[in-house]
């Protein structure tokens, strides 16, 4: 039961109304919702592109789409799904849920998170406008040189791809820093690290992976732009450049990237299983250690994308071993999940249905992954539809199915309404059946010799039936997605009203109203266990004493979440939006001329000055110079007496 929110507190934390007001929002719930809606929009576009591909491939020697457009479509499909949908949607969930789950009133660096949204949106617009202008990238989502070098791709297409990377990586890196800081510094008192919800662990681990992986693709894509714009020779063989170095750099990012997508999915799975089994996740420590070790090991696998290049056998064997061994932590999680279900009291609501779908599909995908880790087998099925099948089984099974589970699970929290159980079952059935019909035949197609990225195939190959089947499956998936959209929109206005905690779950986001008030928690909670709503004693303290006339947030210690100090968070601001505009101008300009960087830097600098310049003298809540005595303690000073019960 939630406490009635104090109107003054609500006013303090309110984001401004209106269109201009919308540009100034810094509330993590608002930005999180935008992320989810926008990323889902990109998912729909990526899906339409996939549908076009499936239509073209449904018959041999088909002339629905020619090679040039097909190459643009498959490149844009992959680029959209990986960079504009999969990572942002998981980060969007994090932006919305992590502060609530750790009991905080805000995400750390709210303006930075707002800025990151604009970079995602403008990057996506940039890509799709380019596509419509026949300048969409057409050399694959991984853009291998020399094909991506100016000699073989003289148009702007590869530059669009490389700069899209810059947009999305800036956005993702910013969110990763914000999420890590939120979890380290803004947790509810009592939420020690071993009481962190597994979903939050997954988000933190993912964010660290982002920090270390994304620089690799940023560096590589910048070097590609330089090769194309100012004549450097990073990847151009004529002058000592190296085509393989691109692959090393790209896949050093690319392999962790898939774990960046998958690990938040496992966080969702742990959460939903615990709630609907009505017990704590079995094996909290092994599950957390599995997340961490998966993240570490994920950085040691990248060469398995290069097994066909003829690298020395001993080196390849190491990567086979690592690629096979990463199944161990993943398997550990799966066994712990099954153990949780086994010993729990299952309620088979729609979110749980998606989790069962995840198990079925992901297990298959994981097993084909082990097969792909074996170098000899890899050299046969690499770059065939077998890999297309594998990657969709692990990504759709491992991330999209949990994501739909997450939609059904957290939709009531975000909107205050419940989605329809009946329609949800239909969506699941359509997507599950459609998915398997689309992608299972592709395993066979790959084994029967069908390579990837081909805009057509001869009738004599005998691939037609399976391709037609796959295309029919895609149609079913489309129906499932449309049904979901209908339900999502309809429920917002006519769905059953949700209580604070319709699933009787244990984590802190359910300790406040649905949707949460502007301040998240009128009285921020404290935690006495991993599922505070289940574990907290009835008289568990709530936090009082934060200011209600300013955006006052409690900052706690990294390890034990003891209260340390308070901090006034920023007011809504137009500067993240303006900086986003200025940065977009710089990025787009600079694919046409290097002077774009020089001239574009000026407005970016000015926007950032505007961002950081104090709007009010006392906006930080500390005294103005000259002041008699300091109020802020030194690094090693104990905080002033606080935390009295």
């Amino acid at each position, binding site marked *: 039961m939630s406490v009635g929110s104090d109107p003054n507190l609500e006013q303090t934390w309110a984001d401004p109304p209106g269109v201009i007001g919308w540009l100034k929002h810094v509330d993590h719930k608002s930005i999180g919702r935008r992320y989810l809606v926008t990323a889902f929009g990109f998912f729909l576009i990526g899906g339409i592109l996939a549908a076009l591909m499936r239509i073209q491939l449904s018959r041999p020697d088909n002339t629905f789409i020619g090679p040039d457009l097909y190459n643009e479509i498959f490149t844009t499909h992959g680029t959209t799904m990986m960079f504009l949908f999969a990572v942002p949607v998981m980060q969007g969930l994090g932006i919305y849920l992590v502060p609530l789950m750790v009991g905080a009133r805000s995400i750390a660096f709210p303006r930075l998170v707002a800025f990151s949204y604009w970079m995602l949106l403008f990057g996506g617009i940039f890509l799709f406008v380019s596509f419509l202008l026949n300048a969409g990238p057409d050399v694959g989502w991984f853009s291998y040189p020399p094909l991506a070098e100016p000699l073989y791709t003289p148009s702007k297409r590869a530059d669009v791809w490389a700069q899209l990377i810059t947009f999305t990586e800036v956005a993702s890196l910013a969110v990763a820093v914000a999420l890590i800081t939120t979890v*380290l510094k803004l947790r509810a008192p009592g939420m020690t690290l071993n009481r962190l919800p597994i979903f939050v662990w997954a988000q933190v681990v993912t964010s660290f992976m982002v920090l270390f992986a994304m620089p690799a693709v940023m560096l590589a894509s910048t070097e590609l732009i330089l090769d194309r714009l100012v004549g450097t020779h*990073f990847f151009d063989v004529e002058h000592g450049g190296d085509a393989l170095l691109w692959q090393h750099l790209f896949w050093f990012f690319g392999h962790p990237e898939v774990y960046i997508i998958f690990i938040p999915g496992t966080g969702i799975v742990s959460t939903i299983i615990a709630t609907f089994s009505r017990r704590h996740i079995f094996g909290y420590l092994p599950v957390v250690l599995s997340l961490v070790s998966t993240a570490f090991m994920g950085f040691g696998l990248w060469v398995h994308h290069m097994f066909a290049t003829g690298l020395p056998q001993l080196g390849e064997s190491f990567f086979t071993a690592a690629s096979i061994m990463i199944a161990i932590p993943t398997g550990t999680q799966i066994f712990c999940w099954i153990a949780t279900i086994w010993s729990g009291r299952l309620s088979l609501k729609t979110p749980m249905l998606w989790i069962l779908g995840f198990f079925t599909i992901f297990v298959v995908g994981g097993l084909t992954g082990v097969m792909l880790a074996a170098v000899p087998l890899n050299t046969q099925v690499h770059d065939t539809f077998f890999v297309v099948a594998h990657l969709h089984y692990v990504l759709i099974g491992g991330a999209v199915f949990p994501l739909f589970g997450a939609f059904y699970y957290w939709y009531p929290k975000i909107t205050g309404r419940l989605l329809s159980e009946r329609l949800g079952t239909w969506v699941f059935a359509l997507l599950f059946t459609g998915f398997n019909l689309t992608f299972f035949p592709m395993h066979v197609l790959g084994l029967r010799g069908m390579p990837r990225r081909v805009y057509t195939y001869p009738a004599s190959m005998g691939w037609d039936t399976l391709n037609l089947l796959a295309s029919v499956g895609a149609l079913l998936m489309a129906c499932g997605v449309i049904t979901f959209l209908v339900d999502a929109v309809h429920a917002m206005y006519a769905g059953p009203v949700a209580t604070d905690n319709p699933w009787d779950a244990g984590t802190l986001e359910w300790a406040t109203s649905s949707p949460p008030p502007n301040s998240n928690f009128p*009285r921020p909670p404290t935690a006495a266990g991993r599922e505070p709503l289940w574990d907290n004693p009835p*008289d568990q303290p709530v936090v*009082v004493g934060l200011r209600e006339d300013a955006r006052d947030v409690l900052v706690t210690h990294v390890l034990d979440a003891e*209260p340390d100090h308070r*901090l006034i968070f920023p007011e809504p601001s137009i500067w993240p939006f303006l900086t986003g505009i200025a940065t977009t101008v710089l990025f787009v300009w600079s694919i046409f001329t290097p002077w774009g960087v020089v001239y574009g830097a000026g407005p970016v600098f000015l926007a950032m000055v505007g961002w950081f310049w104090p709007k009010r003298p006392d906006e930080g809540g500390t005294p103005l110079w000259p002041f008699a005595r300091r*109020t802020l303690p030194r690094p090693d000073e104990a905080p002033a007496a606080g935390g009295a019960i």
Partner: protein
Amino acid sequence: MNESRTLDVSGLPPGAFGSRTVTFWGTLGMVLIESTVFALAITSYFYYLARFPSWPPDGIAPPLLRWGTVNTVILLGSLIPNELARRAAERVDLQGVRIWMVVCLAFAVGFNWVRVYEFRHLNVWWDHDAYGSIVWILLGLHTTHIVTDFLDSAVLTTLMFIGPVEEHRFVDVEENSVYWYFVVLAWLPIYGVIYWAPRLT
């Protein structure tokens, strides 16, 4: 939840210094990201080195040692006013902050100026071959950092002079000095690679 018990945090200070701050961890995140970029660029340098029969290739002379070494001295020297500014900030000593930030900026002008000479004496253009490209991007990446560090320190220093100077701004100064440390210390391996790797291999 029954709210009969409360945890009253009104007595807590409205901020703090050092690793207790939210900003520190944001800065640390930036440091991790940029360190990874540098590490990957340096690894790429050695990747190319292993693929060429001689290094620098084509009989190109290695970058002139003088300006790089001079700049290393200036950069390391800048750590002194940087540390003093940081301590002044922790002491909440506005006068000290103003003085030492200005000295820092003087050093920054110096190392940005000398950086131009470094570029002019690399003895290779970026579009000559892969060696030229990797040397220019290594130096260029670090230059982006010294330029932006100069600009944001200049803005912060201006703010400390013209005000309004809230106590929180001293935390900003302290955090800025943490980032300055990173920019200078990150230079050392890059200096070693650009200037000494071609001489020692």
